[in-house]
């Protein structure tokens, strides 16, 4: 138990002293995961709208399939991305293996199902009467759809934050395709994995606490937004 207390003290020390290595790792974690979340949002918003506003055969099955992929293991995505982007793989020509770029690709892939599913739910959650009102005021189908998208925005932001949370907390993809290279692809989770394997539990705990603080800050910001709405 002493480790947890010492880890806590160490975390506070590292944060107050703005330890350059820890700050760099935390910054990189944020950058990669925020990029992944925004990228996934850019993919999911139009895709979710397409699925939600259209009636087609197998729609329910498709949504079920998307929801199944919520729980795809991170190492499976890591393996898949490794096989794709390894120099000998079909997308090896991009030459991005063991770079932050491939980590973004992997994390985006990882969180896309969650974001897609939640965005569809967000769109479904919009009050039906809003569509009726819009239509009765003479809005076209497309215009009514835009009204729905606009109304769903808070739930969509919540979905993006959820995706971000899954991205920043995963270690499978980051370790497998990033390689945990010091000063280049090392992020908080892979650093924790390495420090724990070195037996440096205090630093691991400190990094874990920093990760939780980041999550807390983002959630507080989100709550503020939702309260104001």
């Amino acid at each position, binding site marked *: 138990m002493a480790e947890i207390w010492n880890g806590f003290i160490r975390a506070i020390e590292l944060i107050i002293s703005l330890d350059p290595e820890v700050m*760099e790792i935390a*910054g*990189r974690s*944020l950058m990669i995961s925020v990029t992944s979340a925004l990228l996934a949002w850019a993919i999911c918003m139009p895709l979710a709208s397409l699925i939600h506003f259209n009636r087609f055969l197998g729609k329910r099955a498709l949504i079920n399939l998307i929801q199944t992929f919520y729980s795809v293991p991170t190492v499976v995505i890591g393996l898949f991305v490794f096989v794709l982007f390894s120099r000998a793989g079909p997308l090896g020509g991009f030459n991005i293996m063991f770079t932050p770029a491939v980590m973004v690709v992997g994390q985006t892939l990882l969180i896309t199902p969650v974001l897609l599913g939640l965005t569809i739910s967000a769109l479904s959650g919009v009050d039906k009467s809003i569509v009726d009102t819009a239509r009765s005021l003479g809005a076209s189908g497309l215009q009514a759809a835009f009204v729905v998208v606009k109304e769903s925005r808070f739930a969509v932001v919540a979905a993006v934050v959820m995706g971000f949370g899954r991205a920043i907390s995963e270690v499978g993809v980051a370790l497998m395709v990033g390689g945990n290279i010091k*000063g*280049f692809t090392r992020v908080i989770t892979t650093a924790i994995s390495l420090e724990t394997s070195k037996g440096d539990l205090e630093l691991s705990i400190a990094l874990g606490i920093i990760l939780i603080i980041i999550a807390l800050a983002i959630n507080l910001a989100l709550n503020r*937004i939702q309260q*104001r709405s």
Partner: protein
Amino acid sequence: MSKIIYRFLGLLVLITMLAGLGGCAGAGGVEPLPPKQRLRVATTTSLYDTGLWGYLEPMFEKQYGVELDVIYAGTGIALEFGRRGDVDAITVHDRAAEEKFIADGYGVKRVPFAHNYFLIVGPPADPAGIKGLEPEAAFKKLIESWKGSFVSRGDNSGTHAKEKSIWKKAGYDYEAVQKAGAWYIEGGKGMGPTLLMASEKQAYTLTDIGTYVFYKSKLELVPIVDKGETLLNVYSAMAVNPAKVPGVNIDMANNLISFLISPAIQKLIGSYGVKEYGMQLFVPGDVAGTK
């Protein structure tokens, strides 16, 4: 209302940019416009866990103006990274696998640059009573006495290959050993974590001496078997063959190998950790008499 959303997105972008700045500052501030070239080297965990690569990396980067990306992995996956063209050079310690790698055309040349020895470490009480035996005899007693457990790397690393070869020399089929009972634990971890696990379980394990000495203060394990010629551990460097694997940064990979065997660096390898741990972790160069 949408203002708030924009504000939130703006905040995210700001954080990202700040993080980017932080990253750059961390990487060393102002950089020349053409981005530095990168050299990727996959290394066995024992050279990484001991901190040797962390020690040598800045010197190499400074000398050649290159970013060195060190990826730690067991020998098995390190060689696979080489075969797939994901790294330019490899430093590992499994001679048979290295020779196959070269024979298959993936590696240019095997260049030994350091060596040390393997040890069987275990709980101070030595429940199986194998202290001081030859490694083969120790393994035989371990499997037959059913006293004490053994943590295997179980990850196709160089150390794992060494363990398998000792079982073979002791007259056991490795598959039979794997099924021999609950005392035989396949950890599936790097060298450092395997030592921590063995200490936690008060089990025996096979380790290179460098990693053991580096982790010693965190372990309740003592050297049990430390003699026998099977226990020799040679680290070598290989550049990936650009003729077989396109896109390899062969010039810089060759620079790395020249760097490792240069007299100045050899001397540093030999003295690495001596002050901190009171003993030598790596002996520079190959072993006299063997190739």
